[in-house]
């Protein structure tokens, strides 16, 4: 067919160059606008600053993306002093442009990446151009990749991984050559990048993994390949796609933990041992007795992530909330009211200073009383409902000056420890089991109402094996035991690394089904005078859905025909197999990046759909090309030569024109200007749920 005679390298490079040029033009236009903090820049800008200031912080995402932002800022002369308090803060005199430009540059790579991916998968120039222009002209992607956010970085690594995958696959005839190894390493590097930017990057790892397994399966099934060769293939891939990313991932964390050596606001989220490693933290370079003796004054920290210190104060539980005795809570800050005295269950401890008394250590399985030092009340529990979690028992402070009753007796259990082991500070995780009721002291995230100063509830949990029941001794003051430095149980890198992987609460903002239909956008900048609204290009997004449905129909038809054994000529079959193969992989990638969100109850934001969108757009490009090419065979002869150019022209002109119409959303709308009321963008508000 005539119009396909364009696959010479010169044409290829010309088209590719044009796509790149257009990309650069659309992305870098107005990149410095608006000159204030936009949306989540307030977070990621802050993280960048913290890296530059070397202050420790806590965040759910792995560090690479934020580190890159920090590095961009550092290299382009940002000094890390801007506070990034809230969206809308003006950047007067701050050199933020560097970070924006670098993020935008990474985001701009998506278009050529898509071009390469589709080209390698289908070897069809029109398909590659279709796919990349769908990504090029998407308003949403343009908006999302123009600011200091993790998304441009994440999308860059995700697409990069797939580029690596297809390029590597293209080298299959030249196995173990230099370029083969090169692309393998490239894929591994990109994979590590996407996982280290956000955990959403795991989906692309799964995708590449499945693709690799499929190729290996074919290699293995080909009886011409000796097993040793297959093993070699397998091992080299394991090296490049498993080992290399893991090493890189750990390396990023190593850099992260090395750079951040100063105490900051994230400390409280980490265990006592972890904190002892941060400059400026009160545990840094502290020293205290290693073992716990009767008569010691201690603080107890709930061992779950973000757990507070066992706390009490002179206030009582209010009327109607169990017994009117002294409140017991957990409190995240260090406070004198967190101090507890460890006593034997049946006798008062000797004086600290008394040198004659033998030192007796608390052992696993011992019965103890805990006296709250400032108020002299004992930690106590009884069969009354706890204030918030009604199924648990209430925990109170009871007695006077350490005199209480039998309900003050607790058994100390060291998790995984043998009977009779001395209890150790910090390293041992303990359970305090109420001797009479048989429940275990527990704390969790639930807050007490106002009467409890919104500190966290402490209860006695009848389910002794609940993970929230674990505590550790953090402070341990007992002058007669030798102090040992905390250095000895400083966590090594691995332990620090494991502890850094913790979940955080998120806010539900939208439902996954709303994303592909572009139900609702997201304000990026709602400042009067300059408004930016993140919204996908509706034609592209809805078109993607239609095409996805078309793909399912086409696929079912072909499967049916194949199952029925319908005859087919070789050329058509080859073209169809290649197209459907490529589409199958792209649809799989789309599903992998989209469907898992249904299983997540939270952390659902509109912009999480964008990785899936990239694959969906590429799928659209491939299918459109396939359909456009099939059409001439179906229409009358005299139309056959014109139908393809007409459709293609229509496609590009619609895309470009609608891009022009919607572009104010991305480049900013000046709603204070006099002609704002007549602005064309008002006519483009097709759905009531779009808020611009």
């Amino acid at each position, binding site marked *: 067919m005539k119009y396909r005679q364009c696959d010479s390298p010169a044409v290829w490079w010309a088209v590719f160059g044009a796509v790149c040029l257009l990309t650069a033009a659309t992305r870098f236009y107005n990149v410095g606008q608006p000159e204030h903090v936009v949306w989540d820049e307030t977070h990621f800008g802050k993280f960048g600053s913290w890296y530059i200031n070397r202050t420790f912080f806590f965040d759910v995402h792995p560090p690479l993306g934020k580190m890159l932002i920090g590095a961009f800022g550092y290299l382009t002369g940002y000094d890390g002093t801007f506070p990034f308090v809230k969206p809308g803060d003006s950047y007067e005199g701050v050199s933020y442009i560097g970070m924006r430009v670098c993020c935008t540059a990474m985001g701009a790579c998506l278009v050529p990446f898509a071009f390469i991916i589709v080209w390698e998968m289908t070897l069809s120039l029109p398909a590659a151009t279709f796919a990349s222009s769908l990504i090029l002209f998407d308003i949403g992607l343009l908006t999302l990749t123009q600011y200091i956010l993790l998304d441009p970085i994440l999308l860059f690594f995700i697409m990069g991984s797939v580029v690596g995958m297809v390029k590597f696959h293209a080298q299959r005839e030249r196995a173990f050559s230099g370029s083969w190894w090169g692309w393998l390493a490239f894929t591994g590097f990109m994979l590590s990048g996407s996982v280290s930017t956000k955990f959403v990057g795991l989906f692309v790892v799964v995708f590449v993994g499945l693709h690799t397994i499929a190729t290996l*399966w074919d290699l*293995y099934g080909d009886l011409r390949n000796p*097993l040793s060769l297959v093993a070699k293939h397998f091992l080299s891939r394991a090296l490049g796609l498993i080992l290399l990313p893991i090493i890189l991932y750990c390396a990023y964390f190593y850099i992260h933990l090395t750079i951040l050596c100063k105490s900051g606001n994230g400390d409280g989220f980490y265990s006592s041992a972890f904190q002892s490693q941060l400059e400026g933290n009160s545990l840094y370079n502290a020293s205290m007795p290693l073992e716990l003796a009767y008569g010691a004054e201690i603080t107890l920290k709930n061992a779950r992530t973000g757990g507070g210190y066992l706390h009490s104060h002179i206030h009582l539980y209010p009327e109607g909330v169990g017994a009117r005795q002294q409140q017991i809570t957990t409190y995240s800050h260090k406070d004198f009211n967190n101090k507890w005295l460890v006593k034997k269950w049946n006798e008062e401890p000797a004086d600290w200073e008394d040198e004659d008394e033998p030192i007796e250590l608390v052992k696993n399985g011992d019965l103890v009383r805990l006296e709250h030092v400032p108020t002299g009340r004992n930690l106590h529990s009884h069969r009354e409902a706890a204030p918030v979690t009604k199924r648990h028992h209430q925990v109170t402070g009871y007695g006077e000056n350490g005199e209480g009753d039998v309900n003050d007796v607790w058994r100390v259990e060291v998790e995984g420890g043998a009977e009779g082991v001395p209890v150790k500070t910090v390293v041992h995780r303990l359970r305090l089991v109420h001797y009479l009721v048989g429940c275990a002291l527990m704390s969790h995230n639930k807050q007490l109402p106002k009467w409890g100063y919104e500190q966290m509830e402490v209860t006695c949990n009848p*389910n002794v094996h609940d993970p929230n029941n674990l505590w550790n001794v953090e402070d341990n003051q007992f002058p007669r035991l030798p102090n040992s430095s905390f250095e000895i149980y400083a966590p090594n890198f691995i332990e620090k690394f494991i502890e850094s992987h913790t979940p955080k609460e998120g806010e539900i903002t939208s439902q996954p089904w709303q994303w592909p239909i572009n139900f609702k956008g997201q304000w990026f900048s709602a400042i009067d005078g300059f408004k930016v609204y993140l919204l996908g290009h509706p034609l592209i997004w809805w078109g993607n859905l239609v095409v996805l449905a078309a793909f399912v129909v086409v696929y079912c038809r072909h499967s049916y025909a194949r*199952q*029925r054994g319908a005859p087919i000529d070789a050329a058509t079959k080859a073209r169809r197999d290649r197209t459907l193969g490529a589409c199958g992989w792209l649809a799989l990638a789309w599903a992998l990046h989209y469907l898992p969100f249904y299983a997540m109850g939270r952390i659902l934001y509109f912009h999480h759909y964008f990785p899936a969108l990239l694959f969906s757009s590429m799928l659209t490009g491939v299918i459109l090309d396939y359909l456009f090419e099939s059409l001439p065979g179906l229409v009358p002869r005299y139309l056959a030569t014109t139908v393809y150019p007409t459709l293609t022209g229509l496609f590009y002109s619609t895309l470009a024109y609608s891009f022009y119409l919607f572009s104010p959303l991305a480049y900013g709308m000046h709603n204070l200007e006099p002609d704002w009321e007549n602005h064309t963008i008002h006519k483009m508000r097709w759905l*009531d749920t779009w808020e611009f």
Partner: protein
Amino acid sequence: MDVGVRNRKNKASPKSGKKTKAAEGGQTHPADTDALKRSIEKLQHLNENINRDSGDGESAPDTPPPETAPDSSPPSTPTTSPDDFPDKKVQSSPKATRSSQQKKARNSAKASQDTQPPLKLSLHVDGMSVTLFVVSFLTRIWRLDSPRGIVFDELHYGKYAGLYMQNTFFFDSQPPLGKQLIAFAAYLAGFDGGFKFERIGTPYDAMVPVAAMRMVPAFFGSLLMPTVYNLMVELGLSHYTGALAAFLMIFDNALLAQSRYILMEGILLFFGLFGLLCILKFRRFYSRPYSLPWFGCLILGAASLTACVCVRYFGIFTMLLGIGILVRDFWEMVGDRMLSERQLLGHLVTRAVIFTTIPVALYLSCFYVHLTLLYKAGPNDNIMTSAFQASLEGGLASIISNQPVKVVHGSQITLRHTHGRTCWLHSHDAVYPVKYADNRGSSHQQQVTCYSYKDVNNWWIVKKPEKEEMVVTEPHEPIRHGDVIQLVHGLSSRALNAHDVAAPMSPHNQEVAAYIDYNVSMPAQTFWYVDLLNADATEGNWHAVESQIRLIHVNSSQALKFSGRQLPDWGFRQHEIVTDKIIDQEDTIWNVEEHRYGKTEDKKEREKDLLRSEMIPLERRNLTYWSKLYELQYKMLFNNQENVAGHMYASEPLDWLFLKRGVAYWISANSNAQVHFLGNIVVWLSGTVALLGYVALFVVYLLRRQRSCYDLPESAWNKFCTVGEILGIGYAVHYFPYFLVDRTLFLHHYMPAYVFKICLLAAMVEHGHYLLSEYLRAPRLARAYLTGVGLWAASILYVFWFFSPVTYGTRDLTANEVMSLAWRDTWDLIIHKQ
């Protein structure tokens, strides 16, 4: 004929290898094959059965006469029914026993074959099935009425049965079939629902027919055993394997407990597996489409699977598995080029029609019974809308029965948030704080909230803007769709107001307040359009209870909305009210619940007004079945149940694999006699090992086959795959969804998956034997293996016996005995402290 399908048939008789060969040899003549196949099917039934073809005269002459088999079946009375299709197992009540009758029946069957009478008889007595049923039933009904106290969820199901007896409406987020079955048994036993099911452990008084109610799960739980046995046989496994699977289930303490007390699992499992069995049987009639048994299997399968869904929504996964099997078989049929496209379409349509009409009809009728029986108001009414409550006798109907219908100028109303959280539009003598915690400012006007309890502050007066007096005028001025009104708060006399100030918790919405004139430049915007959603039903008038309305703010065209967010302490933790520009959503729908006319200074005059007003009849209102069903369904599926987190016996899906925790079901008040829900640990762990073994073997076989090393002959490989397809996938679809469930889970949620695991375990035992005897050809090893299996079975019996005191809960235990049962330290059995 399709080879794949025939292979499956051949696999069905693995024990008779010779016969299989014979069948393969005979494949040239379809008729011969047919005949041979049928004779093979006959031979499979070791315990004799008479298998009479009821179908289409053409194949009947080829049918060889039924062989007589050793009469080893246990005594039982066969029932004959004229239109039973051949493979339907007839479970007869095993009380009367006369083998002569059986012989007679057999003779008559023989005779009928010779003469082809118009009335076709089919008879089938499967001794093994009957034995399994009887043994299982005996284990379950032994001392059925003890412990005579509420055991675990009997609290709910018993209560529901009682409410059925009293026709009192209740709300439960699971469908009603299981509860209805139990209620039916209770009804037959003469229960009047007078017992209060208060807490677990409360002893039943004499009038509660505990045994009758427990009989339902016990019966269905016992029917499960023959079902499983036949299912295994249908999968091509041997009869011994089928019996082994049933044996493992009979002597599993967990399954026993679930089918001994008033719980749903026994019923659920039976319906699910019986449905699957029918679907598998359906495969047999591949060659005779549209015959009576073909339809019978399909319809029975659809019905049984639907019943499973009607017991518990989770049964949908069993149903999907069944449909999956059908789809897969149909896909194979597509590959059969002997069938024309028209025939294929016919098959597809038939299956689709059966699998839509029957489930829909059954599901609807079970809810029809539910809603018809329960017509009195009860404890859970609040969750339903006012209209629904008004349709119940004695509930809201009695409160609103004397109130006028038409809302007019001067009406006093309470406005209820119709869907979702139950609350009423409320205002009180407190203002929004000047500054919120995040430094935003407010209007400092009087708060308007949504309050979840009835309160005098929920009363509002409807006022037309042009009128000053807030009394009902004469003649009445009804409010109609589209009218503009003001709503004046009854106690504070301040009007409902909205303005362009960000709401406290939802800053993107407007704040709603009761207007206080501070004399600052903040004018009152208190006009609202009345937008009736169902204006046609009331001819455009605003009716109390019935009309669903939206209040659209005149100045901003936004709708009054319940935002779902809770106000902090300054708002007394009531819920926030806002206006939202997205009008078409559920949270903007309101309805009048309580309503009265009048409100003058003078009490007498108000009474006079009330007397003059149009009265609502005293009896309950009629709400159509469909609108009731719609609402109930909606609430069941979208009702976010309070998460009962932190139950001390809750467990996680991963704990289930290794039986980490049980559940305390019941403990006697004065001794250590108790029921603790625990499985038979030997079966349990063997099941997990078998599962892993299957996966490992499958991977190994697959790897070998990909390199063209075919270790297993094709038939054995097919069988191995079929087992994985049905049992392995069955296990997966009943297990993995729980990882996504965000609710408190208990060990008993694992039961459906567990049943599939036990079946897989039995299949793996057979496969192990096959590998030893056929693949390795080591008869001695095979014999040793069988001995091992025997010992293993004995250990299962021992463990069953050992734990039976806490399964039956009939025996007092000493503290030491209880301690001796806690084999793992995470099993929290209860010991009373002396």
